[in-house]
């Protein structure tokens, strides 16, 4: 299970030019706001098409500009949790969680496991507007995992929740990582949050990967 990428995407202020490979386990994607973290996720997930370069997941080419390959979003098998959890307002929590379940070929996780793991059993019949920010965040995470993705992307999963709940979400992500055997990339602009999750970091500054240095990071971010 690994993700390999090398791409170039021009942006208004600077070029996003990233290269790397990630194995299973959690990697913290870290950088100041506007550094290109979300665009990085969009390119991996197929939401944005890079100008040039490639993305491959488990030896399956997802994007390759030279060969004009661009696998559409829904065929990538990548779970993504957005900053604004984006639950479907007209569906119950249960239907939100099961939304992508029928599309996954390998059903490696079951609804019961996820609701237990993420403490969602009590709210399955509620609508998104009836639940708290932390519950919504966990539902969004559970919904992505229930598609049995080969890669999980979490974009600022601590943003929507207040400080007290952060430790809670961190704990859930750690628990999930013990169950899933896939690469998990977590975006955050808060280094202390990431530090609690993992020892692997990928530091993005103005569209480029930079050598990770704790002291520099604390100054710039």
């Amino acid at each position, binding site marked *: 299970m690994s993700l390999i990428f090398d791409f170039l995407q021009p942006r208004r202020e600077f070029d996003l030019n990233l290269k790397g490979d990630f194995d299973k386990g959690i990697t913290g994607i870290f950088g100041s706001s506007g550094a290109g973290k979300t665009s990085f996720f969009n390119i991996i997930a197929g939401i944005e098409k890079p100008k040039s370069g490639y993305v491959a997941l488990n030896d399956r080419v997802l994007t390759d500009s030279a060969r004009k390959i661009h696998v*559409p*979003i829904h065929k*990538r098998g990548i779970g*993504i949790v957005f900053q604004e959890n984006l639950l*479907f307002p007209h569906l119950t929590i249960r239907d939100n969680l099961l939304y992508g379940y029928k*599309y996954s070929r390998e059903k490696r996780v079951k609804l019961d496991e996820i609701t237990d793991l993420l403490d969602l059993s009590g709210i399955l019949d509620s609508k*998104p*507007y009836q639940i708290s920010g932390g519950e919504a965040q966990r539902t969004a995470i559970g919904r992505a995992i229930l*598609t049995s993705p080969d890669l999980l992307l979490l974009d600022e999963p601590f943003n929507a929740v207040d400080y007290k709940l952060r430790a809670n979400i961190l704990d859930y992500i750690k628990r999930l990582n013990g169950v899933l055997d896939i690469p998990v990339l977590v975006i955050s602009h808060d280094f202390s949050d990431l530090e609690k999750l993992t020892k692997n970091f990928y530091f993005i500054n103005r569209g480029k990967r930079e050598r990770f240095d704790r002291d520099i990071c604390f100054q710039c971010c």
Partner: protein
Amino acid sequence: MSESVLVTVLISIKIGILATVFNIPIAVIISYFMGRYNFKGKQIIDGIINLPLVLPPVTTGYILILIFGKYGIIGSLLFNLTGIRIAFTQTAAVISSMVVSFPLIVRSIRISIEMIDQKLEVASMTLGANKIETFIRITTPLILPGLISGFILGFARSMGEFGATITFAGNIEGETRTIPLSVYSLLQVPGRENSAALLVVISVLISFLAMFGSSVINKKLSSWRVKQ
């Protein structure tokens, strides 16, 4: 109720429902493209769609004759190939209603399409749904209030349609004579005011029920749109 009044009411409802049912899918597709994509000439298309709102309906009816009449661009072709005549039939009444009510339906659907957070559709695709499945499972339920109010508005406009219908479909009893045409005809005949009054009451009732129904449904639907 006299038989002719009943026939008139039924014809009106039939034409109104047919016109709206045929209009909705076209309006959804047009609204989707107009709401989502920018292309050259978008404003011109927007103008053409909305034209029947500002054109006098009689003019719209005349334009329809020029297109679908026996000697019209499409009408002559159809008549020569199949022998089918459109003008001055019930089909013509349905077409008149469709054209006149179309901009109202597009407006209410387009507003609700533009209100949808497009990221919800992206989220749906990252969960494995393709574009069509996303449209069915996410977009359609989210624009449902717009669809319903579009349906009601379109239906109500069709029920009230007069000018285009009388020009393009004529005023044929039992065929194209809808409530407004019938009220007009009855008022031309001395002593038939009672039948006209009855039709007016029925038409007020139908319109009121339609508006009331749509506001009830909208209220129910809006419960989950809170905090969307």
